[in-house]
């Protein structure tokens, strides 16, 4: 059993999901998502009426967000975050998959590492941020390191579990078919572990983004995290709420895309 429970396509085994969706069903799904968003917006509006000093309402926020998208300051910060995030994601993904494959293939190392990885996943890494700052200084490298610290562990854990749980009969099949090692890897092993790895990458994506944004919220002068914390400090509620909205939008859209990719691979 994986240490990280995740929403995934396998959750629907036995449901109606196995059949290809008819047009009516996809229409219904679209409608359901729309209704959920409407409910969330209504809650937002209610919260806004309850505490107008702390956030702006939905309509005003969307307007501000559109304004922000046209402003140079926003793009400067977004670009700073984007660069840090892109680098962290690249390092978490490649590093995580590589380490995960190695630990998965070498059973003994995997058994030694598994509880340590779980422990690393669950410690509050934010308390270690000062250490990261002392090692890497105040620039982009500290943010990247912090993002990687958050993102790499779930990728390692999911990849390792995927390799450890490969059905042994697949490997025997490869031997019976006399596949070369590279063919075995390319035609059997990678397709077998791919869905799990994509789940790991999706979780890694989320946590890397979280790590980078937290990093920017503390001791930084650049990035969306800085815009948020600055918005809090100087009480710029309009820009604060709009940045958060854009961030949530980005996260949910990317999450949905990765989730859809994952579901397709699990078919």
């Amino acid at each position, binding site marked *: *059993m994986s*240490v*990280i*429970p995740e*929403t995934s396509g396998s*959750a629907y*085994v036995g449901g109606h999901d196995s059949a290809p969706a008819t047009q009516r069903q996809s229409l219904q*799904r679209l409608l*359901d*998502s729309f*209704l*959920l968003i409407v409910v969330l917006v209504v809650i937002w509006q209610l*919260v806004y009426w309850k*505490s107008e000093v*702390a*956030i702006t309402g939905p309509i005003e926020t969307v307007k501000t967000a559109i304004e922000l998208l046209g402003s140079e300051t926003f793009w400067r910060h977004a670009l700073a975050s984007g660069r840090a995030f892109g680098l962290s994601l690249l390092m978490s993904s490649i590093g995580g998959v590589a380490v995960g494959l190695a630990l998965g293939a070498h059973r*003994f190392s995997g058994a*030694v590492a598994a*509880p*340590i990885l*779980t*422990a690393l*996943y*669950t*410690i*509050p*890494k*934010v*308390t*270690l*941020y*000062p*250490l990261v*700052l*002392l*090692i890497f200084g105040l620039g982009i490298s500290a943010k990247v390191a912090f993002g990687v610290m958050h993102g790499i562990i779930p990728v390692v854990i999911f990849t390792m579990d995927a390799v450890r749980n490969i059905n042994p009969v697949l490997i025997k099949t490869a031997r019976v078919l006399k596949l070369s090692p590279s063919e075995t890897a390319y035609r059997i092993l990678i397709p077998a572990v791919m869905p799990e790895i994509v789940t790991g990458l*999706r*979780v890694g994506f*989320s*946590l890397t983004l*979280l790590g980078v*944004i*937290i990093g920017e*919220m*503390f001791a930084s002068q650049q990035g969306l*995290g800085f815009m*948020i914390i600055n918005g*809090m400090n100087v009480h710029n*509620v309009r820009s*604060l709420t709009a940045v*958060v909205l854009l*961030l*949530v939008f980005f*996260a*949910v859209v*990317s*999450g*949905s895309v*990765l*989730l859809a990719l994952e579901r397709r691979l699990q078919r």
Partner: protein
Amino acid sequence: MNQVTLVRLCVIAGSVLAVEALCRFGVINRLTLLPPSEMAAYLVHLLVSGEINQAIVQTFSNVAIAFVLSVVFGFVLGAVIHAMPRLRRACDPFLASYYSVPIFVFYPLFVSLFGLNRWPLIMIGFLFAITAMVIATLNGLDRVPPVLVKFARVHRMSRSAEILRVVLPAAGPYLFTGVKLALAYSFIGVLAGEFILSGGGLGYAIAYAYDAFDNRTMYALMLFVLIVVTAINSALFIWEQRLLRRRGKV
């Protein structure tokens, strides 16, 4: 003790000793990192002197409240979502990307909603932890074998007896994973909230020590947090392994 555990302990002890040696021989600058032995010694001093007692009590009580709330509400919410497949499908993208939203940004909102007291921080821990519990509940309920539900009907169980005696125990291992993660995330949420935003608790004490260049206090507190969280998680992990072994799942 088996070989794997032994090697694991050696790896951990070796890493600590290596850091110790690097610090002692000056490879790592004292301004960057203190030798672990000094951290531990100063931590003992802090604990004995009672200076950090108040911060400890504050942080841990907040974590406890956030944890209990997230487990209870996470389970209920998970059960509700599980009962409505259409709602569930609509929620999926949000559940899948939930952790990239830094919940801390809602701190000012919570302050304005709940006042400047412990509740805004508890809410951050709570919101951070609840998703893990919701997802674990969904997973657990998905995996209750249909034959056990039929078994409950053959025994003419009421709905509540069925849930209490069949569904919950069958989903148990998954719910336990959720409880474990809810605790971890409650810690992460509360400590990060204190670290970035609030004026009290262990997280704040670490940030304050960092700003004041007080590395001894900072590292002693970090060590304390890591030891406590790891100890609690390991205890839960061992307990979980025992439960799973009984079910032949290890």
